[in-house]
């Protein structure tokens, strides 16, 4: 799975969780930029990512994921 596919899938997840059909995410998208990206939604995002990409994210890792780029890199590391 390449970066483009990952970010597309990720974008679908973001659109569902934040309920915005037209949301466009970029590597720089972060909780600072997206107001509704609070701690509960972060957990929901992580749950959905684990489910979608069939991987597990540890406690420490989860706290280090502060923007979309981090999430994409984490996914690439785990699935390859």
């Amino acid at each position, binding site marked *: 799975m390449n970066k483009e596919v990952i970010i597309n899938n990720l974008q679908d997840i973001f659109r*569902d969780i934040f*309920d915005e059909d037209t949301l466009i995410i970029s590597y720089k998208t972060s909780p600072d930029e997206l107001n509704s990206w609070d701690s509960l939604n972060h*957990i*929901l995002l992580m*749950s*959905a990512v684990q*489910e979608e990409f069939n991987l597990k994210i540890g*406690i420490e890792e989860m706290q280090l994921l502060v923007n979309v780029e981090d999430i994409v890199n984490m996914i690439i590391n785990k699935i390859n």
Partner: protein
Amino acid sequence: MEDNLEYPLNINYILRKKKLLKRKLLNKGDFIPKNIAILGGSSTSEIINILEIFLLKNGIKPSFYESEYNKFYEEAVFNIDNLAKFNPDIVYIHTTNKNILIYPNLKDTENDVKILLENELEKYKLVWNSLLKLNCSIIQNNFDNIVDRSLGNLDFSDIHGQTFFINQLNNAFSENARVIENLYINDINYLSSYLGLKNWFDRVLWYQAKYALSMSAIPELVFNITKIINSIFGQTKKCLVLDLDNTCWGGVIGDDGLDKIVIGKNSALAEAFTSFQIYVNELKKRGIAIAVSSKNDIDNAKEGFRHPETVLEFSDFVAFKANWDEKYLNILDIASELNIGVDSIVFIDDNPMERDLVSSQIHKITVPNIGEKIEKFIDYIDKNGYFEPTNLIDEDIHRNKYYQDNNQRVLEKANFHSYDDFLLSLNMSASIKTFSTLHVDRIIQLTNKTNQFNLTSKKYTFGEIKSLCLNKDYIKIYGKLFDKYGDNGVVSLIIGRIQTSVCHIDLWLMSCRVFKRGMEFAMLDEFVNQCRGQKVVEIRGYYFKTSKNKMVSKLYEKCGFKLIELSDGKSSWALKIKNYKNINKTIRLDYE
């Protein structure tokens, strides 16, 4: 879309699309408003989000009160006035084993453990007693089992074990629920076992956000709470209407006969049908009305419940409709006879077409998509909580008698455009052709097995079929039927014998799977067509009565034949081909 909120829940869909689900459900309008207070012993915000969706689906628009994090005790006991202002209809107390603060110490005596138990219980009793002043219903979790057991299996039996402690507390909870009228236990001990503790509890989520259950368990928890709430508000179902063939037993009673239907203990499949009957019987014993709506002759249908190993008997049913009318008409009759709303009825049928027809004609009836595997049927009834009771009272246990006595018939008007419209929606196509020696096996099988739609019940040997395949004086056609559910295979046969420009129908049969679909008309059209090609001027049809083929006694009349002879269960019919016009209206012919 709402299917995702029924058993089996589509967990990932619910968690990801909850906001979309909420918006769509809100558009439906027509809700009963209710105030629901959630007092948590751990995080509850996502529980509330999902609970809202499930309640909206059930026609309840909730306003929520959410306690501060892990303040269930303080808010119920010391801050009851605040809660009183909210005026809750229901208070849900979401506590779990994470709320048990003091477990027995290994040095504790039996008496020490008893005191610890009483102290723990006292906390909850204070909560319940305080809430009772609000005159609302209380839904209280019992305790889930712990995942980590340093005592191993001994944790269950030793008085110092945490599992032992939890089991004692759960017993005390059930005692209290028997005494306190408005207290209902949400059995998360069962739920977590059913889901598996390792799926139920997620350490990371607990450390990180103090959820005492995993994200994927939240919809299941909420689904369970919703069943209790439905029951409290009297929204549970009252009547289970069953199909017979391949639902109450395996096989087709009309074709296979009593000795061939599958029920009892002789095979795994027979056991599965027996388990289903046992489950239905349990529902019946506690006051759920059970009824039958089946396309069958009444005598055949009744006979099935005289099988030596049947669990259910004819007298168990408060209404028994076995005929060739459409099932939705029978179900409307059942509803008016029992004087209940169609929204109180659950209909179980292994045939997807029948399910679709009933649910499309009766707007508020519940028709779960149970599939066709008997071993899965119980789950669809049980896990959807259609018949969830809040308590058992004498009246429930005797209710069936009431239904049986109350036999008034008030006809309801059917919500129906036309049956043909429905048939057209099935998008049926048929392939009707002359059969060849390739089809001999299926033809022999059909002639041996088909007893209901079979005009002459004539049997053929392998050799006879082979030789008539090659004989030009026979018109022999088979029909395959396709619909939006798939290929039904070869379902109908007609064999005609030509003698001096008259064609005698020696055999006409059709599988019961496709009764009432118009396939017989398509078959006759093609048969007449081939007769024309052979310069036949008249067709003669014969009906030989058997114990099972009453349903086709009027078939020739319906197809425009004239009666020419009638004697002792036999009738002969004639049709002049010159005047015949095609009668099939619902099936598209596929000439390939």
